[in-house]
């Protein structure tokens, strides 16, 4: 059973992925799987709602474009607000991780 991700964490990871370059939904899922060495396998039932939420929040914006296979896909990219949100959430995540580590090593 693949590790489940908390909803907020997934959104942070999606933002990070899109910070590197704009991509479509499947591309994000693929990239996340690759970089995490298969630990996180995001199914569309979790990813697409997350993308919708991020879009509603104004953190990413989307447009239909042609893929390399000449198919139509919705490409997402980070907005300035999203970039700021990513930084903030990254900082908070680091704080939490440091705290958890300290507790576990105490």
């Amino acid at each position, binding site marked *: 059973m693949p590790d489940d991700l908390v909803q907020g964490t997934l959104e942070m990871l999606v933002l990070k992925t899109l910070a590197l370059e704009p991509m*479509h*939904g*499947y*591309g994000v899922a*693929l990239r996340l799987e690759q970089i995490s060495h298969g630990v996180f396998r995001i*199914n*569309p*039932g*979790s990813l*697409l*709602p*997350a993308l*919708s*939420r991020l879009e*509603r*929040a*104004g953190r990413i914006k989307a447009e239909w474009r042609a*893929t390399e*296979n000449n*198919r*139509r*896909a*919705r490409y997402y990219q980070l907005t300035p607000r999203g970039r700021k949100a990513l930084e903030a959430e990254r900082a908070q995540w680091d704080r939490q991780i440091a705290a958890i580590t300290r507790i576990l090593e105490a």
Partner: protein
Amino acid sequence: MFSRLTAGLRALFHRDRRNADIQREVDSFFQASLDDKLRRGMSRDAALRAARAEIGSAESVRHKVWSAGWESTADSLLQDFRFALRQFRKNPGFSLTAILILTLGIAASIAIFSFVDAALIRPLPYQDPSRLVVLFESIPLGPRFHLSYLDYLDWKRQNTVFSSLDVYSTYGFLLQTPTGTENVEGARVSAGFFRTLGVAPILGRDFRPGDDQVNALRPVLLSYSAWQRRYGGRSDVLGQTVVLDGDPSMIVGVLPPSFHFAPAEPADFWATDRADGGCEKNRGCHNLFGIARLKPGVTFASAFADIKTIANNLARQFPDSNRDQKAFMLPLTDVIVGDIRPILLVLLTGAALLLLIAAVNVASLLLVRAEQRRREMAVRGALGASRPRLIRQFITEGFVLSVASGILGLALATAVMQLFLRLIPKDILATMPYLRGIGLNLHVLAFATLVSLGAGILFSLLPALRVSLSDLRESLTEGGRSVSGTLWRRFGSNLVVLELATAVVLLTGAGLLGKSFYRLLHVDTGLEPGHLALVQVAATGPAYDKNEQLVALERRLKSTLSTLPGVQSVALTSKLPLGDGDITTGFDIVGAPADTVHREVAFRSVSASYFPTLEARILHGRWFTENDDASHPPVVIINEQMAREYFAGQNPVGKQIETQGVKHMEIIAVINDVQEGQLDAAPRGAMYFSDLQFPSGFFAILLRTSQNETALLGPAAAAIHSVDRGLAVSEPATMTERIHDSPSAALHRASAWIVGGFAALALLLSVVGLYGVIAYSVSRRTREIGVRMALGAQRSAVYQLILREAARLAVLGIAAGLVCALAATTLLRSQLFHVQTWDVTTLVGVAMVLGSAALLASFLPARRAASVNPTEALHAE
């Protein structure tokens, strides 16, 4: 934020396009996934299988994306709302009953609350009203009597506890208008009165200390409504002259619209007290009430003690005038609303009780329906509805019900408020100026919202609890006789018993009050009230300065009025009976040993025809005759109560008394007690002088007629004016009207109606509640009834079965209610007139009414049970 709103709205209104967009995205994901797998070298079949497995259910993915937006919650709420409406439409009987019951309950409580708010919650229009007190002089006859001017000055000078002390009295002014003399309502106050209250005029100026000097033009303040009514709200009213009581007076200011002073209302004109009548020089002439503001830090008790000491000192200093006169003090709020406060609180409790019954009733009806929908809920749950979703359905239904009833109830309440206002006679309403602002104001709306929300929460919780407590799986099985079902049934039965008991209590109260009202209206007043026309007359001015002039006027009036068609007799009195019973004086018995007992009785000055016109009865002695005039010795007629109190065991006729400066007055008769006070007042001593010997410039005329007395009022006024245009004629009425509109009658009538209204509603609610419980029980026992009938039970046996269950509940409820009624009605004791709180007829009547109502309520379900088809019943469930 705003974009989120618009995106959601767009999704809501263009649902298909949104769905299509989502589908396209899912498709493109699938396509990208497929391409990627093919690129990695999987076979087409394997790639397809893997891609499909990855997506899972496209429907489910679409739903998840849709749920990511706020519009999905809004949409499902809207769905719930539409479903709730459809449910209500499908069960019109249930919906209409529920809404009707709730609306009635909510309307009653909102209407009552508006009165409570206007009278008790809204602050009085003065500065720091809790620091204001009203001062009286208390005498053996009672605690709330007037002060005299000289006493007021001494109290003002000697006290150390009031930052200011002023006086007021109600007063009727004779206003000279182009069309004649008009009697107008007003008040006379000392110069610092409005400053003591902390009220400033919105136009012009307040009174100044020099204003009560006789030589200055008397200043007058207008009430706001008088300014609007009589002067059209024009700002040039300042400086205008009005002639009041023959004195030219100047309007110097207008009072604020929010201002009212109930003890002196209604009052159009406010004038300063003038040192003119001579009453202010006589310490024994009492015509004022005091109003004072406590100094900061002074308590009510210490101020009361201080003023009591001052009054006792005065009584010692001036024994002739002030003997036995003590000081009495009450907070202003008590004087204004003290009488109606207990009534209003009782009404509010009643309304709350009624609302509770209504809410409980509707909740139990909802429970019944929730039971019937058990299977529907179970199926929905099996199809994937989450428990919160199901609970939300009930919550929506509950709130739709309560919001609809709340709105309807608010609308109905405005009508009920007007109805209540009409229960109060107009001239009594004028003395309750704080009721002017009754209507849909902020407080009332807030209360209405609170009540509706509370009801909504109650209705949603109960069925929702039922859903969460029950095992959904178990409801799907056949013949589920769950423990929780029996629990709820017992709960419903207990509720009905409670409702029945409450209805019994209210019905008993209504019955007692109704009986008391009836007894009040038929009490022996000592006079015959039918066919009597009444009118007040004021004869003032230099033409009526001397007694002979007034006597001559009386003769002219009598001869003119007796020529009117249908008039059987004409009589005069200085003050009509069945009023406030006031105007008293002291007297001493000539020849009796001197003592310190203070004798005080009411006194009136009447014409010789007075008692015959009233059809009073003479017990000893003779009537007044035309011979009892100024050239003959003064005579007096006393009533039975005075004879009982002061001439016990003797025959008073022939004895002499000394009173009002007359050394020898012979008692020529004893008559039966004519009620000078209110219908329910205790008998009080009264004596009557001949108005040929002691005429009064302010008197009332009574006309006994054989025909319709109301038609006589107009011609009578015209006839009086034909004798002298300068006479002020006012307050035309008939004696029966006077009785009907009297404060005590109005109070009893209003109480009986209101409690009766409550009782009727409570009865309706109990009947509906009983019906609900029995119907529910029948629906759960359908199978059992089918079995019984299949085994040979007759229809009558089924009837008995159901009716016995109903009877058990009814008997329990009625019995409990009767016990509670015996306890609760002791609260009414002070309101009841000649009726015991444990009046047997009423109790038996109430029990019978409820018994038959209960029978009716249970008859319908019983009939349905008896007409059950055994085979159908056995197959059902």
